[in-house]
């Protein structure tokens, strides 16, 4: 795993204003973890910042029928989510 400066945990749909703020706050070296409704972002055509690694919670991706869209996203389970939070220097839960 690459070191993570700030891990951004986002659980809101792309329409949500806090989701927009989160996307704006990403910096090189940060990582983005999509959970709950936020996994819908992988179905949109929104451009992802190539400097940020994007993870998505597998259970939430499956629940929304999005397994086919997840090619550029790293699917993680809860143990891997714990690893991300343990390893990140800072965490923001949006």
């Amino acid at each position, binding site marked *: 795993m690459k070191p993570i400066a700030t891990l951004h945990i986002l659980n809101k749909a*792309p329409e949500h204003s806090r989701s927009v703020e989160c996307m704006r706050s990403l910096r090189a070296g940060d990582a983005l973890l999509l959970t709950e409704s936020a996994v*819908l972002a992988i*179905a*949109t055509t929104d451009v992802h910042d190539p400097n940020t690694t994007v993870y998505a919670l597998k*259970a939430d991706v*499956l629940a*929304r*029928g999005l397994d086919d869209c997840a090619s550029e996203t790293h699917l993680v389970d809860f143990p891997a989510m714990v690893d991300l939070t343990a390893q990140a220097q800072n965490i923001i839960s949006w």
Partner: protein
Amino acid sequence: MSTLIVIDQPPYGTWAGREALDMAFSLAAFDQSVSLLFTGAGVNWLRKSQKTDGIEQKSIEKNLSAAPIFGVKAMFAEASACARYGLTIENMLAGVAIAENSSNLLHQYSHTAFSG
């Protein structure tokens, strides 16, 4: 009175869509005219193969597929929201009509309701 129930909230992350469906099915059970409009992130209720075991919630897919049987008159999905979320005829539940202009639709019903 003809009712349009609007679902604009995403599936599973909130209960609003579920409770909107209950409203629609209740109207239908009492033989009242009711249709459903999915807009915004709400169109994601309509995607095929929702596998919800991992989040311990019941999939809503079967209920939606049964909506016509329960007497729901029509299900509409807003075109621009479908485009945004990559929803096409192939990956969407059957029986959904695409609404090019949801504003037109809103003005055709005497009663419009969101669940929350």
